[in-house]
């Protein structure tokens, strides 16, 4: 890595302060055009370490850029990943304060919880399904710290892939994880359908997203894995929908359950 630890730390502090102080900033690659993928993840890891040092619990991991079409457009072969925190968790039906966020958007996802950790290389969908303890409907609230959403992929990685809040559905019915590519999802804002999608949007099958995460972490090095008993958000089934104060979001998953949240 070309950047020394101190510089990476400084970027991490700058980005985390933007999150904590609810301030939009310019993208990291404006200050550092030569930022490498490795350095972008190193900044994210610094942000994670800062939070853990303050007593924040990491509750899981999340995937982004999980559309093959978008990956092809951007000329990359891997999606991107980040982490989620205890203070990001919002109960189903709960309120999310707009005051704490910059310009949030919501997207419908599926979450996986594994019964045993998985680490690549060589993890495939089948191995993920065999290691899966449960799946849950989940809505992610993303909130890029970059002004006007002007960013590139490396800047997004450094910014913990825009992670902000998440809601896991509490009223669910059993759904076969192997059928998730056929899962139909409808996202309503204040009673009208504003976005919909099918599970296959996520890398062909949401379990493929967990497999790719395990393989990416395996490449990263010793000790990196998809942990057991942590929530893995697999990536957007719907597009990300902007929200405003007062909005009610209801996401319905066919034969699986629903998630609702309220922006105040």
């Amino acid at each position, binding site marked *: 890595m070309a950047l020394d630890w101190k510089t990476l730390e400084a970027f991490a502090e700058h980005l985390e302060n933007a999150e904590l102080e609810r301030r939009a900033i310019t993208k990291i690659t404006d200050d550092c055009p030569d930022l490498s993928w490795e350095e972008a993840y190193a900044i994210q890891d610094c942000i994670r370490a800062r939070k853990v040092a303050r007593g924040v619990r990491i509750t899981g991991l999340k995937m982004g850029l999980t559309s093959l079409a978008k990956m092809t457009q951007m000329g990359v072969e891997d999606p991107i990943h980040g982490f989620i925190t205890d203070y990001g968790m919002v109960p189903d039906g709960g309120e999310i304060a707009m005051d704490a966020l910059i310009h949030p958007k919501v997207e419908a996802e599926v979450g996986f919880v594994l019964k045993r950790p998985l680490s690549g290389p060589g993890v495939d969908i089948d191995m993920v399904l065999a290691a899966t303890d449960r799946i849950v409907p989940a809505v992610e609230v993303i909130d890029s710290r970059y002004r006007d959403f002007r960013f590139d992929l490396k800047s997004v990685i450094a910014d913990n892939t825009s992670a902000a809040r998440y809601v896991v559905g509490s009223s669910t019915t059993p759904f076969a994880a192997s059928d998730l590519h056929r899962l*139909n999802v409808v996202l309503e804002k204040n009673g009208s*359908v504003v976005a*919909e*999608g*099918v599970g*296959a949007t996520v890398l*062909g099958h949401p379990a493929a997203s967990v497999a790719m995460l395990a393989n990416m972490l395996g490449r990263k090095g010793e000790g990196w894995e998809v942990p057991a008993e942590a929530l893995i958000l697999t990536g957007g089934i719907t597009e990300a929908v902007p929200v405003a104060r007062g909005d009610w979001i209801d996401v319905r998953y*066919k034969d699986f359950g629903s998630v609702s949240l309220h922006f105040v």
Partner: protein
Amino acid sequence: MLSEEDRRKGAELLLQAERERKPIPQLSKTFPDIEIEDAYRIQDYWAQARIAAGARVAGHKIGLTSRAMQLASKMTEPDYGRILDDAFYNDGARIPASRFIKPRLEVELAFIMGEDLAGPGVRIYDVLRATEFVVPALEVIDYRTEVPRAITDTIADNAAFGSIVVGGRPVRPFDVDLRWVGATLSQNGIIEETGVSAGIMGHPAAGIAWLVNKLHVVGTGLEKGQIVLAGSFTRPVDITAGDIIQVDYGPLGAIGVSFI
């Protein structure tokens, strides 16, 4: 508002664009006073000319059925056009891309009417009662004018209708929950778009109820045997020659076409 002469002229320009496969300047630029009513009258004149030349009206299409599309075109309601009988392709067809000017593909359901249906006051359940089958269908939309287009340009241009491809498994209206038909659109093996039919105004029959009430205002309705494209539940995907399109409707089967 335009004179009847200008409306006829608008239809002639569109027919010329269609014949020459060359877009004309937007009618909203050529005729700055054009209103929505003019646009539908231009579409009527266009259809009359096509019918006089031997085409038959096989049904209707409904456009702008998603809130996102309505917001993008500053509309609060859908629009509609005619499906002519020379615009049909079957599942598996090899479709010449050169037939179109700027083809884009959308994922839809089509309703086959089992009874005549006329407004006013038609609601979703009236549509369901009059529907014989619902079947997966793709729509190729096309632009016979330059872009960007005002809503009047789109409506005059037969609501951008290009071609229809019907396939998959026909169902009766109560065989499945029509709000929950999901579809995955792959272009050359990569999933480009997915959607669920509730994206069409909450229920795919909602747009048809709107259409029937709208047709009542101009003194017509839907006839038994006619087909109605109920509106897209994905964003349009740009098409070029060489594309292979596969759309998986889950329990309702699949449609595949290639563009040559």
